[in-house]
């Protein structure tokens, strides 16, 4: 045998090596295909992902079949009927089962989105996205999102109703997660290769804080502090007035306000900061919020019943921010838009009334400059004594990397959001105070609002609503309409909240809150309608100081102008108004601007541009070319005018003021562009911008149509992953009623006619299913873009059926 071995030739030997290596190769192959990798970009676990038995193929939705499921935690049977557009109608015998079922069904359609938004809010994205998300995560944790969520949860769990609702919803989500096999995970989990976690009440609260962050965290305190140092208090007052003297506030109260401010006798002077804040300010997008709501009384409608309309403007993403749902149980029969991850209906109607919200805009966050005893930051100076800080060690389990730890220091104001550890080595320590850090009970407010049968019941419900402050519009079947601005507002002294505050004196803090009886609101005004569009809330005589990041100045006036003109209003008229593309801003400035040009010396391109603008009807419609030329001109002019602000990362003065000064004060010093030797006036700048715009337009001839130029994009939450996202052709622009921008706009449009049998319509740029493999992923997208609506299949208390349900799911208690 030894000789046999000796005689074996080279080929045989090599064969043996191959045989030995083959199993190792196979093993490595399987391991490679079972893991996700980061090779510059994310590589999914190919084997797991492509396997048709457990991978993405299984996420392709096929025919929906009725089923029933036994679930522990339920008390009685719950019937869920999906209608033809996949809106669930939930019938339960009690509150617990109702919210349990809402949690279960929402998770069934939107689980990945719910959890992803919470991870993003809580600063945990790096756990799935790796190191590139670490900066985002650190910033989130320094803003105290989870800190605020814990405080809010603590407040809510004191209340038995809140606790019951939150617990039931969480149990429902978890009942879904628990029965979910890995092969049925939403496709995004498979792509990114991670697993859903159990849901908690805290996660619901984090989700609400994420919404609050988008609504009441915008602020320009640091920019204004910088501006104050650069240009002085008078110039800041001139450039950034708190009140812009624009007609049509939300509530005009010509009879004045019959009360005095609670802080009227507050004598503590507020010192203006003399700090120069050389912090790198976060780049901010131009102001783009511009939600609308209005309610029209029966006097102005064709049916004689009030109509309520609402379109909240948010980032347009997929899966959509809203999930439409109908909740039906004893004492409750409500339908409308819910936030995936939170129980109840946020914007909706029942058989007695309807309500809608826009953001109140008011400044509800401040920065305090903190003086620490030493570099250990264990103690800080406050009212002549050293107070102890609380240090929170934040851990980041960064994917494919070491655990990163970061200390966030908390003062009694809130967390230190800016410090030398994070914002690029600057020495300032700025504590962040945010209204949404406080305990609150908005879940209870919506619980009561969903069940309200009269406007009085609505106002009672709103007493439990603290943040984010909203303009609530109401209309009822009994014929009432109302507007109420609700939130927890600090009663501020002049300038408080506009600039960086001194953190060493408690006298600089929020000392009073505006009492509920001083809130701004009105009921059944003689003009026959109420409306809001994020504009200034009231007339100047209101006894409290009001400041904000910004207030809108155009869409609200356009809404009121149209509503005043309209009579015999039908729901279809209201839908058209929600899709109104009239550019009031352009109509107020363009005619004058065109006269400032010198048509004799036009180049060929300028002649074209002039012609397009001259013949434009001021509508930002899909096919409009004038809208594109105007936008391009505007975008060229503004940075040339406000070059001083751009150089310092300071917010630009508002468009309204800019237009006013071009007209009334064309030699204002700021019109001079610092980069050029000559001293410019407004017409010179506009001419230069016009030439630049005309030249640019001549090279983008394929983008002259407004919809092509604007390119409305509904991006998937994973950074707009192209495979799961859509470009749509849609008109509108910021400051227009149809405030659809590139990636931001009406996230839900709804019209409710409060006839005896309430009728309602709605559309949003997406679909009820969050699954890109479902035909219901983009159900409403096309209709939304075309200004069309789906009628919502609401039914009153007597009836219990959806005509031709797409699918019926029965949830039964497992004993």
């Amino acid at each position: 045998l030894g000789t046999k071995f000796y005689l074996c030739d080279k080929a045989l030997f090599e064969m043996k090596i191959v045989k030995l290596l083959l199993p190792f190769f196979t093993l490595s192959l399987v391991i490679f295909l079972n893991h996700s990798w980061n090779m510059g970009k994310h590589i999914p676990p190919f084997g797991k992902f492509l396997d048709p038995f457990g991978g993405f193929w299984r996420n392709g939705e096929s025919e929906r079949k009725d089923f029933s499921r036994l679930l522990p935690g339920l008390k009685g049977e719950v019937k869920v009927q999906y209608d033809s557009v996949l809106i669930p109608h939930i019938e339960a015998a009690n509150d617990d089962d109702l919210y349990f079922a809402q949690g279960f069904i929402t998770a069934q359609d939107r689980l990945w989105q719910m959890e992803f938004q919470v991870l993003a809010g809580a600063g945990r994205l790096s756990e799935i996205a790796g190191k590139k998300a670490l900066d985002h995560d650190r910033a989130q944790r320094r803003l105290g999102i989870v800190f605020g969520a814990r405080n809010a949860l603590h407040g809510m769990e004191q209340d038995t109703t809140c606790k019951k609702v939150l617990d039931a919803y969480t149990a429902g989500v978890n009942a879904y997660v628990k029965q979910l096999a890995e092969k049925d995970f939403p496709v995004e989990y498979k792509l990114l290769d991670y697993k859903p976690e159990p849901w908690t009440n805290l996660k619901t609260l984090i989700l609400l804080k994420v919404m609050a962050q988008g609504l009441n965290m915008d602020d320009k305190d640091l920019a204004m502090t910088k501006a104050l140092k650069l240009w002085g208090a008078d110039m800041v007052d001139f450039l950034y007035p708190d009140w812009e003297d624009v007609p049509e506030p939300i509530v005009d109260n010509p009879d004045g306000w019959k009360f005095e401010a609670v802080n009227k006798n507050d004598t503590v002077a507020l010192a203006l900061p003399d700090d120069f804040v050389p912090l790198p300010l976060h780049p901010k997008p131009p102001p783009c919020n511009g939600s609308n709501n209005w309610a029209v009384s029966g006097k102005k409608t064709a049916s004689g019943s009030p109509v309520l309309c609402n379109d909240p403007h948010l980032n347009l993403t997929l899966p959509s921010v809203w999930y439409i749902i109908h909740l039906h149980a004893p004492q409750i029969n409500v339908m409308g838009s819910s936030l995936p991850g939170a129980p109840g209906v946020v914007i909706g109607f029942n058989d007695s009334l309807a309500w809608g919200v826009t953001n109140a805009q008011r400044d509800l966050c401040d920065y305090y400059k903190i003086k620490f005893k030493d570099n250990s930051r264990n103690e800080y100076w406050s009212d002549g004594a050293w107070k102890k800080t609380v240090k929170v060690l934040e851990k980041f389990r960064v994917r494919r990397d070491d655990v990163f730890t970061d200390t966030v220091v908390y003062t009694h104001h809130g967390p230190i959001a800016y410090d030398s550890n994070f914002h690029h080595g600057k020495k300032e320590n700025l504590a962040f105070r945010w209204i949404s850090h406080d305990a609150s009970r908005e879940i209870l407010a919506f619980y009561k609002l969903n069940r309200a049968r009269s406007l009085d019941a609505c106002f009672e419900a709103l007493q439990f609503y603290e943040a984010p402050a909203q303009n609530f519009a109401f209309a009822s079947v009994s014929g009432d309409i109302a507007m109420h601005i609700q939130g927890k507002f600090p009663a501020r002294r002049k300038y408080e909240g506009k600039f960086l505050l001194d953190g060493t004196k408690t006298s600089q803090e929020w000392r009073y809150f505006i009492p509920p009886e001083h809130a701004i609101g009105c009921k059944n005004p003689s003009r026959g309608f109420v409306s809001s569009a994020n504009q200034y809330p009231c007339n100047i005589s209101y006894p409290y100081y009001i400041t904000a990041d910004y207030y809108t100045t155009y869409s609200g006036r356009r809404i009121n102008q149209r509503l005043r003109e309209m009579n015999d209003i039908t729901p279809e008229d209201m839908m058209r108004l929600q899709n109104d593309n009239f550019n009031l801003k352009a109509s107020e400035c363009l005619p004058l601007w065109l006269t400032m040009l010198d048509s004799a010396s036009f180049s060929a391109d300028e002649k074209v541009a002039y012609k397009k603008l001259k013949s434009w009807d001021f509508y930002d419609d899909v096919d409009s070319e004038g809208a594109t030329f105007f936008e391009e001109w505007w975008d060229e002019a503004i940075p040339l005018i406000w070059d001083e602000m751009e150089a310092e990362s300071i917010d630009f003065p508002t468009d309204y003021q800019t237009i006013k000064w071009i007209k009334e004060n064309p030699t204002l010093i700021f019109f001079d562009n610092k980069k050029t030797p000559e001293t410019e006036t407004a017409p010179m700048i506009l001419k230069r911008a016009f030439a630049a715009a005309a030249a640019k337009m001549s090279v983008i001839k394929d983008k002259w149509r407004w919809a092509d130029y604007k390119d409305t994009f509904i991006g998937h939450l994973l950074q707009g992953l192209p495979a799961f996202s859509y470009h749509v052709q849609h008109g509108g622009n910021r400051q227009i009623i149809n405030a659809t921008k590139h990636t931001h706009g009406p996230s839900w449009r709804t019209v409710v006619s409060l006839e005896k049998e309430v009728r309602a319509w709605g559309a949003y740029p997406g679909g009820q299913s969050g699954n890109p493999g479902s035909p219901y992923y983009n159900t409403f997208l096309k209709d939304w873009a075309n200004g069309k609506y789906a009628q919502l299949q609401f039914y009153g208390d007597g009836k219990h059926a959806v005509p031709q349900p797409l699918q019926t799911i029965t949830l039964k208690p497992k004993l």
Partner: protein
Amino acid sequence: MKIVFYSIAIALVCFVAQLFLPWWYAALVCFMGGFFIKRLGTAFVSGLALGWLWLIAALCLDHANHSLLSQKINLLLPANALLLTVLTGCLVGGAACASGAAVKQLITQWRLSKD
């Protein structure tokens, strides 16, 4: 003929295994099949059955979904999703099956050399 029999057998066992177990159990099934088949070439070709199984399963799901999802996934992947699915199945199945045969041969040779 034998190859056809082996292929069908492997595909069937893989199908049943994959209904309940993670995807890599299919590789284990192929490996054991190869162990039984013994011949390297035959084993490799028979192992490709995993690819065919994946092809049929993916086609069924895709048909029921009207290719709604696969069209989107195609944009995500470097190549057509169905093609990649079949190639991955073939590669894993073939390699695992051939590995089984190779290990069986090595064991046989080792036993022989000990005798």
